[in-house]
């Protein structure tokens, strides 16, 4: 399954399409710095899908899929975007004090698969094209919807929380501890929403960076409580990566389908 997923990924250039690859490959965006001081600063961000954190070794994330949102909710222009084979990079300038969100969240993808003349057919697109191309009428068609977010947050000056306003779609992150205010030895609490409601019982995987220098990667799994909150105390300073995914069933526009939502983000723990 893993190899099939990789081939499909490469063949279709679908970077965020396959929820199934989340465990095999880790998507991440790593800013040059998470916490800034001064009136105006530039930040550069690496974006890749790799096995080791945070070392590119598999595939770039398309910088065109990235949106940067400023503290006041405005879209911040991305500059100097470039995509290499195994890593993309882009810059943006911060002129407002507060927290910025860097996100790949876009329109959800729809997937369909069905059998045709003994062959398994696969399709990906929007709900409109799914209807227009008659995919929904295919025999024994199975449809699924994927909401996938890969994010990171950076702050100029004091952290702010406006960029965490929930859209109510898919898995979303809410700070209890601000992600740009994390220190080793202090408990960190983050919260998840699923379609706008607290995502309780969700399994979250947390992994500190530089895992390739450790015999034991140091990954740990946590489960969100009734309020959708998970809590841990980082011991290693440095960048961290966490991810969570959920699967469910829904009916959209009269079509029953599976829903896969995932959320992945990068933050840093500073030494106390």
């Amino acid at each position: 399954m893993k190899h099939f997923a990789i081939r499909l990924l490469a063949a279709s250039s679908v970077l965020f399409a396959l929820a199934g690859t989340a465990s095999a490959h880790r998507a991440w965006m790593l800013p040059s710095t998470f916490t800034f001081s001064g009136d105006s600063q530039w930040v550069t961000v690496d974006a890749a899908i790799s096995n080791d954190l945070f070392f590119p070794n598999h595939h770039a994330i398309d910088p065109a899929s990235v949106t940067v949102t400023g503290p006041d909710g405005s879209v911040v222009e991305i500059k100097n975007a470039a995509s290499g084979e195994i890593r993309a990079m882009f810059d943006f300038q911060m002129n407002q004090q507060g927290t910025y969100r860097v996100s790949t969240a876009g329109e959800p993808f729809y997937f369909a698969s069905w059998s045709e003349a003994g062959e398994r057919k696969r399709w990906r697109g929007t709900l409109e094209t799914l209807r227009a191309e008659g995919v929904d009428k295919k025999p024994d068609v199975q449809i699924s919807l994927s909401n996938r977010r890969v994010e990171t947050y950076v702050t100029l000056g004091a952290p702010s929380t406006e960029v965490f306003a929930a859209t109510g779609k898919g898995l979303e992150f809410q700070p209890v501890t601000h992600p740009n205010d994390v220190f080793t030895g202090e408990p960190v609490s983050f919260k998840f929403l699923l379609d706008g409601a607290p995502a309780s019982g969700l399994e979250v995987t947390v992994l500190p960076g530089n895992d390739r220098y450790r015999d034991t990667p140091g990954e740990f799994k946590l489960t969100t409580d009734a309020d959708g909150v998970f809590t841990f105390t980082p011991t290693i300073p440095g960048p961290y990566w966490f991810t969570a995914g959920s699967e469910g069933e829904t009916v959209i526009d009269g079509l029953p389908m599976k829903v896969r939502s995932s959320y992945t983000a990068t933050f840093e723990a500073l030494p106390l």
Partner: protein
Amino acid sequence: MRAIMTLAGMALLTGPAVADSMEIGIAIPQLNVAEYHRPYLAAWIARPDQTVAANLAVLYQQERRGEEEGETWLKDLRQWWRRAGRDLTMPVDGVSGPTRGPGTHSFNIAGGSPALAALEPGDYILTVEAVREVGGREMVQVPFTWPANGAAPLTVSGETELGQITLTLTDED
């Protein structure tokens, strides 16, 4: 005239801490390194829960040629930045100033100054943090009780980026 003098006397009696002053000696060590830059340094009074009771000093590279590059590195004083700096607008009158070289620097905080006038009696921690470009970072904490009680000066030594930190509380009663 007499009434005014009495009022002034009462003010002194009810708030002895107002007049107590503080002298802080901060030693910046001489370092034998190929590339030396004077450290950024912050000194503040923390409450036992690490919230900030008073900002005493912030030394950083001042604006040059209309640029504000000096403020870019304030966040490297990472505890000060988190506890105080990020909520301040720089420069801060009577608190911020240019960096200083190796030697012992004395900071006199006068009784009745804004930093001390609002300091309620209780336990505090004098915190001094230093960070040096292409160098290290160190934080030294000196717990003390306010107001002054005639005790001997308190001394804690840093190991890398800071030398001896001396806190002298002067009882003005």
